[in-house]
């Protein structure tokens, strides 16, 4: 295990995510940091709060036909289609690399059925070097006619219970923004035992090539991420943080320390960096530095004294 060579991790940044203690609140968002290897030459992985790996299913999945991505105004659409090596290959081929670091590994998981969720969770629970699970409930449940597990409070709770029942690891449930009231889903998974919730996953969008009159993505629709969605993500995090007691992890369009601070002030206990890593492979490190600098500049002794300290609004 490598040690931190620069020592810029300040004790004032530590956070507790449903029993998982992180040295700071900066994590990588699933699907945007690979399995860590790709970014290890760009960042000292020992410094990160945690790494959340690309979503894992029971068997490997090829993903969707290309084109899979398209840039939009201040954002991007992706329809990767949850391509992944499968949970067993992950443990065999990817996890050993990550175990070298002083870095909590959070496995993002998904399934097409409740059983698949449970099985993936069980397998990971036995793996050495997995510190928590993040359950992606934003993928369509093929058995239920295309309605995502995450869009229904009862189904979301059911998935949560299944996964919780299968593991001793902390379980973070990752919520979809494509719902009428995300706080209702958050409350439901909290009641079902989730140790934390993370949000938001991507917002479904599309884009058309008007010269050829075809969608830019072969899959027609894709998930929108990046700065464009930040105001929506922030609003949802703020709504959820006022309704649940478990820690809330903020995700969506965080490009710099300022954006990260907005989420923390709105009530997020930690944050995840997604699309920003594509724009700047050192985004996670830069954001971490920026957070530390803000706390120092504002003389805030611990990040917990910043979290959820929004004041001054007058809701009408």
């Amino acid at each position, binding site marked *: 295990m490598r040690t931190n060579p620069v020592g810029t991790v300040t004790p004032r940044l530590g956070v507790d995510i449903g029993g998982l203690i992180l040295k700071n609140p900066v994590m990588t968002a699933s699907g945007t940091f690979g399995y860590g290897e790709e970014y290890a*030459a760009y960042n000292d992985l020992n410094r990160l709060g945690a790494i959340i790996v690309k979503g894992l299913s029971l068997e490997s999945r090829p993903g969707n036909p290309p084109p899979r991505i398209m*840039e939009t*105004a201040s954002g991007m659409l992706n329809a990767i289609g949850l391509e992944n090596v499968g949970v067993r290959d992950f443990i065999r081929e990817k996890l050993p690399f990550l175990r070298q670091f002083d870095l909590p590994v959070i496995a993002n998981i998904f399934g097409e059925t409740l059983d698949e969720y449970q099985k993936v969770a069980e397998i990971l629970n036995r793996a050495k070097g997995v510190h928590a699970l993040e359950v992606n409930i934003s993928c369509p449940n093929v058995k239920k006619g295309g309605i995502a597990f995450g869009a229904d409070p009862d189904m979301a709770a059911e998935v949560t219970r299944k996964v919780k029942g299968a593991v001793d690891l902390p379980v973070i449930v990752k919520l979809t923004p494509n719902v009428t009231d995300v706080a209702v889903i958050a409350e439901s998974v909290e009641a079902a035992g989730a140790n934390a919730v993370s949000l938001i996953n991507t917002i479904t969008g599309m884009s058309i090539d008007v010269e050829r009159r075809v969608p830019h993505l072969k899959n027609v629709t894709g998930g929108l991420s990046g700065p464009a969605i930040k105001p929506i993500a922030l609003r949802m995090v703020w709504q959820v943080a006022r309704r649940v007691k478990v820690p809330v992890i903020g995700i969506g369009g965080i490009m710099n320390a300022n954006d990260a601070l907005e989420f923390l002030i709105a009530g997020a206990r930690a944050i995840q960096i997604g699309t920003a*890593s594509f724009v700047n492979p*050192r985004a996670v*490190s830069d954001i971490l530095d920026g957070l530390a600098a803000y706390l120092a500049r504002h003389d805030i002794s611990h990040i917990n004294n910043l979290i959820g300290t929004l004041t001054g609004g007058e809701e009408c």
Partner: protein
Amino acid sequence: MGKSGSERMPCGEPYRSAVSCRVMENRRVAEGYFIMSLGLPAACDTPLPGQFVMLRAKGVQAPLLGRPLSVYAFKRGEKGATLEVLYKVAGTGTLLFSGLPDGGDVEVLGPLGGRFEISPGVKNVILVAGGVGVAPLSFLASHCRGDRADARPRITCYVGAGSADALVGLDRLEASCSDVRICTDDGSCGHHGLVTDLLEKDFNLLDSRDSVICACGPSAMLKRMAELLEKHTVACQISMEERMACGLGACLGCAVAVKAGDGGFRYRRVCKDGPIFDLRELIWER
């Protein structure tokens, strides 16, 4: 393209990062085609033929993502190095690049991806360039020249473009290649027709164990080449293009379908597993 000063890896190497650098020159070489020279720090890595960089105008919020461009030339100098890209204005990002003034700031990530591999035994290198596909091939040709004189392969380059106006980078190609054969869709220069037609005619010359074809161009050209080569055995490496987000292999956005052992397919990442692929490995219609 470089390293960050502040932190070091356990091995003592600094961590990598995108490098801010200056546009030394951004010259229009034909209608819609530009060559941009970038000044890089001495500590930058040396790119290999076929590799690319992700380029972003510094400080702008849109476009968000970098744009992949092949390395067209690279030279080390006294205090740093110069990297050149040859690009065509295709949309928002490249349009923005074309407007960057000399002295403007860009961010360069790379060199990324794999290289064209010319093994020592190769006697004939055949380059097939469609349009701006000339960029990586010109860099490759200059590299072959750079090797030991006795080991130098013979380089023949087939260049196709819409019309004479869109023929770019010929000067350098001519300096590096034994033979440059030109064709244009409208016949305004060289052979009248597709570069693949010209190539087809020469096929008996090419199909040898000592030859390798390296190609880069629009997918219609590459597809046509795949058909041509079906009944031949000559090796063929191509540089593929797909939209990219990370350029590092992490996002899985730049997938192309290749043949899998079992007669099926699997996706490979252009940025990490490519951009150079064996032409015969690719699946064109799915």
